[in-house]
């Protein structure tokens, strides 16, 4: 078996084992809470009786998975070169409010309006990530601690902006403050037609957010960038061995700045599915915590776009079950426990599997020492 395939299989096996153990641990918690694990797991797969409720469930799951996927991508770009951008949380919030505000100030044909909003979000996110990057390259400030600090600054800044300079007209009976509602040309078309094509009813509410398409394009683009281009190679080299990268002519400062800004720019898009697809403004009830969950998703997906997509879908799948779990009399926060344990177990499993893979390769290389035959090129 080629070494690469073996490593990939082993990784999948490790992830599956980790998830199984996480399920066992959660079952223990559920039993301790006096509920039945069967009921809980039935609830996860209970998408309702009618076609419409099934469609609704799928839309909810995908709508949750899309921002998580983008967040995972943002985190992964940094992680791949051992840059711990813990600041995705702050970057997406500050980007979201700026984009929502800018989007509400003008009206243009839909494609232009949406493109401008996306560009603003990416630019603000990228700029906010530039701060820790510059601090790191000029003054050697560890990015973990600076991005954590910048998260709190961004969260408070966003709270100030939404209640102060960027606040909009509050509608009758509305309790939360928010930015002005964007014109309809800034509403991203939904994907409900997919369900209609399949002969299913359209989901209620905002439906299936159209930003899904942007997320898929982003994922494919990022995969190509990281796996096939010179930039991706330099990112990988910097992550695996910064001194070797430096000696090979990779400029570490440039890499830190570009990886951080790219990470921040992607992070800036995290809030857009919700803003463009559903809320059409940034309010004080805007979904928090996506940046931190993004770290979990990236770890789970081993910093690879395909893995991150699977992980985001898994998290979306778990999060969807909030309601059904309540009906089944299971505390819905069991989802948080599952997500936390899955992440912890998967990173442990990754360590174990990479050790196994290494031992196998060492053994094979050692056997090779014995005979001196030319080897095949594994393309």
């Amino acid at each position, binding site marked *: 078996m080629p070494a690469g395939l073996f490593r990939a299989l082993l990784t999948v096996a490790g992830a599956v084992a980790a998830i199984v153990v996480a399920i066992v641990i959660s079952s223990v918690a559920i039993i301790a809470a006096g509920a039945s694990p069967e009921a809980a797991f039935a609830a996860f797969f209970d998408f309702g009786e009618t076609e419409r409720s099934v469609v609704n469930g799928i839309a909810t799951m995908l709508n949750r998975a899309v921002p998580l996927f983008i967040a995972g991508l943002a985190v992964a770009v940094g992680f791949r070169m051992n840059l711990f951008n813990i600041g995705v949380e702050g970057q997406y919030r500050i980007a979201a409010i700026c984009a929502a505000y800018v989007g509400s100030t003008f009206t243009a044909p839909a494609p232009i309006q949406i493109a401008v909003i996306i560009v603003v979000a990416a630019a603000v996110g990228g700029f906010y990530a530039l701060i820790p990057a510059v601090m790191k390259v000029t003054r050697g400030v560890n990015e973990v601690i600076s991005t*954590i600090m910048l998260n709190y600054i961004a969260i408070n*800044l966003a709270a100030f902006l939404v209640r102060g300079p960027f606040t909009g007209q509050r509608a009758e009976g509305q309790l939360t403050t928010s930015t002005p509602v964007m014109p309809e040309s800034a509403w991203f078309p939904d994907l409900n037609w997919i369900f209609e094509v399949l002969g299913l009813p359209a989901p209620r509410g905002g439906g299936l957010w159209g930003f899904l398409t942007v997320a898929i394009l982003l994922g494919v683009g990022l995969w190509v960038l990281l796996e096939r281009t010179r930039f991706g190679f330099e990112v990988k080299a910097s992550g695996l061995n910064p001194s070797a990268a430096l000696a090979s002519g990779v400029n570490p400062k440039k890499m830190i700045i570009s990886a951080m800004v790219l990470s921040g720019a992607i992070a800036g898009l995290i809030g857009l599915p919700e803003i463009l697809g559903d809320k059409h403004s940034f309010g004080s009830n805007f979904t928090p915590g996506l940046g931190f969950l993004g770290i979990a998703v990236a770890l789970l997906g081993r910093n690879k776009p395909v893995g991150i997509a699977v992980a985001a879908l898994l998290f979306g799948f778990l999060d969807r079950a909030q309601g059904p779990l309540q009906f089944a009399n299971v505390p819905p926060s069991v989802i948080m426990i599952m997500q936390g344990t899955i992440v912890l177990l998967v990173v442990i499993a990754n360590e174990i599997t990479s050790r196994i893979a290494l031992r196998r390769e060492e053994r094979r290389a050692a056997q090779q020492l014995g005979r001196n035959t030319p080897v095949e090129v594994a393309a």
Partner: protein
Amino acid sequence: MTTVVGSKRTRNYHLALIGVAVLILLMSLVRIVSGQDDITSSGTFSAALLLSVPIGLAGLGGLWAERAGVVNIGLEGMMVLGTWFAGWAGYQWGATAALVAGLIAGALGGLIHAIATVTFGVDHIISGVAINLLGPGVTRFLSEVLYKEGTAAGEAGAGITTSPALSSQPPQVSLPLFSSGPDWLGSLESTHWFLLSDLAGILRGVTHNVNVLVILAVLMLPLTFFVLWRTAFGLRLRSAGENPWAAESLGVNVYLIKYVAVVISGAFAGLGGVFLVFVTTKYVEGQTGGRGFIGLAAMIFGNWRPGGLAGGAALFGYADGLQLRSAGAVTSFLLFGGVLLVIYLGLKVRGMLSSDRPAALAARTAREYTLMAAAAAGAVVLIWLWMTVDRLPNEFVFITPHVLTLLVLLVASQRLRMPKADGVRYRRGEQH
């Protein structure tokens, strides 16, 4: 230690004393100029002490772990565990039980971190992030199970996000004569004399109605210093953070040391959580408010040393306390910052004028001028802000410790020295 080390230590000690004196003088000046008595009032300092303690405890947690070579950004999650269990045990069995439960919960969080990082060699940051996800998840789950309507706790006033109030509070003490009874410091403070009243306010703040547990917590600082720098165990622990392979070759059980250190680290974080519960008299979801991270920042601010850590925690606690007492007084710190920048400028200019180097070389870099220009501009902006802004929005006050930490890191990060093998993956029998 030899005379060299000894004299360096005394010099540092004197420098620290002079620094504190200058600081108090400046604060007094700013108080007189701005008329904001809360800058040095005993109320502010009392609040500052109370708020510094959890930050300091989290920082000590970080110190224990990082001195043994394990980066612990999971402090926040461990602190959350501490708050929940303190609330849960506290409403049923009182303050002592709260203390013990919070301590153990934090230590368990530390144990998970130790298993992941030490036994399985998971990256320390990654494991910490996972624990920060897990902590709030577990507590939320427990609240939903134990505090839901219809349970005994629910009757006692619990909700999904809060525990019932603690059934007892730890006792409080005051310094006799000075801070209670005749309350000499109190009367001196209310005269608002230059410097004297400021000193009195500060002293009264930290001696009047002080929770005994605050005293205990403050004692943890010298205790930590003693254990880490004066005992055999401490030497071994620090060796695990500096060069675990050397320690291993001398028969030190590095795994065990790291386990102990990280569990103690978690216990300190949990203890920090217990304190927050004592302050609000009950567990409230989200009450840690990122203090685990600020504690970590205080430790870095303090260059991985207990004394510096205490300084950092005090500074952040003070910023919090002042904002709590009087939001208006906070603007005075714009003036304070401005004055500091002016002093910095003065020192720089003097240094330049007195330089006896050849002119061509003395004017070494444009960088220095840029720096000075930036300082001057900063001073002008800060003083202008102080004169025009009446009241800072709350959000800006909340971020003070974070902004300060960033500034300190920017200025001092190259002089900071963290343990050499901090955050490094260590496996027995494998050279790095």
